[in-house]
């Protein structure tokens, strides 16, 4: 909200302040945050009135004039080069002197224009920021004194403060409300204007309430002999100072009343009202109402509307009707000052896209006991400014509204001090509340506080504590560290649960493995997901754009976007290395319709995923020949190292054959991918991106990626610290085997078989070599397997190892037709 310093000064004496900056500090400290301070004379430093003494053509340029001007103050004339032609000798013009910094940003410097020195510039309205467009320079009235500051001549001596009001302080949406706060802060009285009293009768048009509690009171006033015309200058200026346009004297006074008192009011052309009544009622569905902005709305049956007994003449609290608005010829007017339900006004304003200064004030709630005074002030304004004569008024009120009184709040001095951590005296607290126009009654140690009717936000004792806190200033509240009380159920801080700890450890491990953590958006476009054969089951109903329309079912599409972003800005011959990981949830829904169940259930499942992408050289730096290229086994190594770091037990792998790849169709190269399982539960895949996808996305090189469910991994990760395990004191023995097997046999099967059948002494089995070549039969591969034997309790004997080896070899042959080469 914009507040004019001068205007506010009419409501509360600001002469004790050093200026707008100090006012801003006071308001901000009280919770009325001042966002900007705008001096109207900003940019008018060094702009003065001057008289043209002489004018001739520039010798070098037809379009330029050379002027001699009198800048006043007894000085000599100044030479000015000017591009405009609309001035003549004797005119008073605006001279921007050397050093001026105009509102449009232009800096005036001494300079030569086409060889002639110019000692300043004659300004146009546009250059002075007084108009968006202007032709020629601004010519001031003939009797304007020479050498005066332009800001003095134009009366631009006000300062406008932009205030960011919080949602609870609707009472401050007016000069009166703001002045109350300032008055309380300064210990000054409010300079309230005198309002003429009126009696509640005599209006030829009567008001009726027909909307129950949604419209509890209504003041109407009938005035004759008004003259519609332009507003007086002071009123125009006042509205313009806070960014409002002057329309005519009637519209302007209704705005003036709203800004001064915070009460939105409406003025009807009384001659356009037909039924002798103004009634507030709920709309029927499908009623069409022409509005005064030229548009038409169709009601839904919920809104509050105003009718004249024959037709709808306004959308209550939002906008008046186009069929009853005041115009040039209006002679008689009907004034409305009423109370409408905040929620209905808010919904209607949103529904029809017509939120306004008026609807905003209704939404935030208006002093239920202030309408009479506001109406009196409005009648005074209309009479004074548009010459109207009051014929009579009409007033209606629900009994519940008539009986309304503010509920008092019980509190104690101890509560307030304990809650704030302060040590204020009872006198001090009482005085603060009284300054804020609260009634305070004392009984024993208890205080019974009755807030003023305009403070609808004060309801509980904590609200009173806040009033005290902001009155003494938050700076005056001490600084303490809270005590740690015993806590049987929760840890004493600095602890994360197991799940969060594993996530953190996984991130650390992946970073240590040379992978960079990335964060991608949880939403992607339908089209982008479709490129990966995916569909989201969780669409966003009101997305910002199509690009962000659907919650992701997988982190892979976002990861690919990040990869492509890195490709996009990679130039030159150096190979691109991209190594990214992300740990974030993905979203799915399997029910009929996404809908809240109870207070806490959404039915949408969030599954925590780990996604990794690797591509480019294996080493970060080095000679080309030594850097190598990342391949499948680098990705596999990252995952194995991760599990080893976490001490996760029970992660199994399976070569991802076509059957397994059903669930990841098209994402992975079937011959270069692996399925991971946690125990028996499949948790995801790792592998080279499918060559089809690689070519569709026009990737520069092979990309290896993985996506795994993280929760099962967390489940298999021990919470307990690692415990020491002793190694066997007896020497190990080993046997190497060269096995000829089918190329399609996963080598891992040989390992698992050896460990299974070699129990208990075959402790380790590993592939140490593979060989394929022309010496081998077609379709065969030679695999070198080393088995390491040991016994924890004694030295092994050769014979024992030989027997075990024979068994292993036999099983290899039985199970896989593997033969020793």
């Amino acid at each position: 909200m914009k507040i004019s310093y001068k205007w506010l000064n009419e409501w509360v004496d600001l002469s004790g302040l050093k200026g707008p900056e100090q006012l801003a500090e006071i308001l901000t400290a009280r919770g009325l945050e001042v966002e900007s301070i705008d001096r109207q004379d900003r940019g008018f430093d060094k702009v003065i009135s001057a008289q043209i003494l002489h004018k001739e053509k520039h010798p070098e340029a037809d379009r330029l004039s050379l002027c001699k001007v009198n800048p006043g103050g007894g000085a000599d004339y100044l030479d000015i080069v000017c591009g405009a032609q609309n001035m003549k000798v004797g005119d008073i013009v605006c001279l921007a002197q050397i050093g001026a910094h105009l509102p449009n940003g232009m800096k005036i410097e001494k300079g030569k224009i086409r060889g002639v020195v110019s000692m300043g510039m004659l300004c146009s309205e546009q250059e002075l920021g007084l108009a968006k467009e202007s032709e020629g320079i601004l010519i001031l009235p003939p009797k304007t004194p020479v050498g005066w500051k332009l800001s003095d001549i134009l009366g631009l001596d006000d300062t406008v403060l932009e205030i960011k009001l919080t949602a609870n302080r609707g009472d401050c949406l007016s000069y009166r409300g703001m002045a109350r706060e300032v008055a309380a802060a300064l210990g000054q009285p409010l300079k309230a204007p005198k309002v003429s009293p009126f009696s509640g009768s005599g209006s030829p048009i009567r008001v009726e309430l027909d909307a129950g509690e949604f419209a509890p009171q209504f003041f109407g006033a009938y005035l004759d002999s008004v003259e519609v015309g332009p507003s007086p200058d002071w009123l125009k200026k006042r509205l313009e100072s806070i960014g409002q346009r002057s329309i005519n004297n009637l519209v302007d006074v209704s705005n003036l009343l709203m800004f001064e008192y915070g009460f939105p009011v409406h003025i009807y052309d009384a001659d356009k009202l037909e039924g002798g009544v103004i009634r507030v009622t709920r709309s029927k569905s499908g009623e069409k109402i022409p509005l005064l902005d030229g548009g038409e709305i169709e009601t839904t049956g919920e809104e509050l509307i105003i009718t004249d007994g024959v037709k709808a003449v306004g959308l209550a609290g939002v906008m008046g009707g186009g069929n009853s608005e005041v115009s040039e010829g209006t002679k008689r007017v009907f004034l409305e000052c009423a109370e409408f339900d905040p929620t209905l006004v808010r919904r209607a304003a949103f529904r029809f896209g017509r939120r306004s200064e008026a609807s905003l004030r209704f939404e935030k709630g208006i002093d239920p006991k202030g309408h009479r005074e506001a109406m009196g002030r409005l009648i005074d304004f209309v009479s004074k400014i548009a010459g109207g004569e009051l014929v009579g008024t009409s007033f209606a009120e629900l009994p519940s509204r008539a009986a309304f009184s503010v509920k008092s709040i019980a509190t104690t001095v101890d509560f307030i001090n304990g809650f704030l951590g302060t040590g204020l005296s009872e006198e001090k607290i009482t005085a603060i509340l009284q300054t804020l126009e609260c009634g305070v009654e004392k009984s024993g140690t208890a205080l019974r506080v009755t807030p003023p009717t305009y403070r609808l936000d004060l309801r509980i004792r904590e609200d009173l504590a806040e009033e005290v806190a902001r009155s003494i200033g938050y700076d005056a509240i001490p600084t303490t560290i809270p005590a740690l009380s015993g806590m049987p159920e929760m840890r004493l801080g600095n602890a994360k649960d197991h799940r969060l700890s594993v996530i953190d450890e996984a991130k650390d491990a992946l970073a240590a493995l040379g992978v960079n953590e990335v964060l991608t958006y949880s939403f992607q476009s339908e089209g982008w997901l479709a490129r990966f054969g995916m569909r989201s089951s969780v669409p966003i109903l009101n997305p910002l754009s199509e690009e962000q329309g659907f919650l992701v079912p997988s982190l892979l599409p976002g990861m690919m976007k990040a990869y492509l972003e890195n490709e996009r800005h990679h130039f030159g011959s150096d190979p691109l290395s991209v190594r990214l990981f992300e740990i974030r949830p993905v979203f799915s829904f399997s029910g009929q319709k996404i809908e809240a169940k109870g207070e806490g259930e959404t039915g949408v499942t969030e599954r925590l995923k780990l996604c990794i992408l690797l591509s480019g050289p294996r080493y970060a730096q080095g000679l080309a020949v030594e850097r190598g290229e990342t391949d499948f086994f680098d990705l596999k190594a990252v995952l194995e190292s991760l599990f080893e770091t976490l001490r996760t037990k029970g992660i199994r792998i399976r070569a991802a054959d076509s059957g397994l790849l059903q669930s990841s169709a098209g994402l992975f190269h079937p011959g270069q991918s692996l399925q991971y399982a946690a125990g028996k539960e499949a948790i995801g895949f790792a592998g080279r991106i499918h060559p089809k996808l690689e070519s569709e996305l026009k990737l520069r090189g092979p990309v290896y990626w993985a996506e795994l469910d993280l929760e099962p991994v967390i489940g298999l990760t021990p919470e307990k610290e690692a415990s020491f395990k002793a190694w066997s004191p007896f020497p190990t023995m080993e046997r190497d085997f060269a096995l000829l097997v089918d190329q399609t046999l996963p080598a891992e099967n040989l390992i698992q078989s050896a460990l299974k059948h070699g129990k208990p002494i075959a402790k380790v089995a590993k592939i140490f070599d593979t060989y394929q070549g022309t010496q081998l039969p077609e379709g065969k591969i030679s695999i070198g397997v080393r088995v390491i034997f040991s016994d924890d309790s004694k030295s092994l004997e050769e014979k024992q190892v030989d027997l075990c080896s024979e068994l292993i070899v036999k099983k290899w042959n039985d199970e896989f037709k593997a033969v020793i080469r």
Partner: protein
Amino acid sequence: MEPLLFYWHMSIHAAIEEKGSSALNQIEHSTDLEALDAVRVAVLGKKGSLSEALKQLGQVPPEERPKLGALANEWKAKIETAIEARKEILAAAQIEADLIRTRIDVTLPARKIHLGSLHPITRTIRKVSDTLGRLGFDVTTGPEVETDFMNFEAVNIPKDHPARDMQDTFFLGPGVVLRSQTSPVQMRTMREKKWPVRILCPGAVYRCDSDATHSPMFHQIEGLWVDKKVSMSDLKGVLDFFAKELFGSHVKIRLRPSYFPFVEPGAEVDVSCALCAGRNPHCQVCKGTGWLEILGAGMVHPRLFELAGYDPSEISGFAFGMGVERIAMLLHDIPDLRLMFQGDQRFLKQF
């Protein structure tokens, strides 16, 4: 002594002298260890020249033998010393030669392994959690898809409340939203556990807003402390500690009254500009105001305790919430919010 014999003796004498000095000469000129060893064999070996000369000693009259023997031993020692000395020189030369042969250009690039990094958001959440953890806060998280109830009503923002304007929310279905704040975690925790409660809730939140300073997805950390006799001065103390730990012991905090429906009283919290302390009117960080708004805070509204099943007359509490991106940008001098979500490694690798 007979002259002939004398000459013969003399000739053995001379032969020793001659072989000896010749050997010394050869040693001196041998250029590698092999040549040196050949000299040793040729002179001192079983069939070496000195050994040969010594064999003739038997023919010399006994009285002459000691003299010649001594001479021969003298030479032998001399030669051995010379060989040792030469060997040392040659061995050193050999190492020198090897050094030259095995020299590499050490200014060629190192074979560097990839270094990974943690996202500044992760780093900031950890930093904040670790700092406040020392005061006794636990970290806890909750779902990102929430009910309207948990996101709004449970934090005292009923339907049609003007405060809903403050947050533009993404909707997924009737009563289902992408949480616009991490506050639902507070309510979920309070409904699960008895007080005292001291928690930090970090996580992603969503609002329909996207420009240079707003991202539709961003992160928050909220803190909640509920116990007997918790006061607003405690809130100030915790925030003061937090600001000093994060931005330096010289920074100050400032609380300005503000309004959030879930707290009463509410405050916006500024820290003094760590860079210019308000002394530079053109400061890029604080825009010359001397203050940076970093979080919102306040005393928990009793309505929340009622909704949580706590008795508001027994307890009080404070809560605060901050934008993680904002803190991360301040800590790491990041100029543009959008960098956080682009996945550009030139950005990621800096942290």
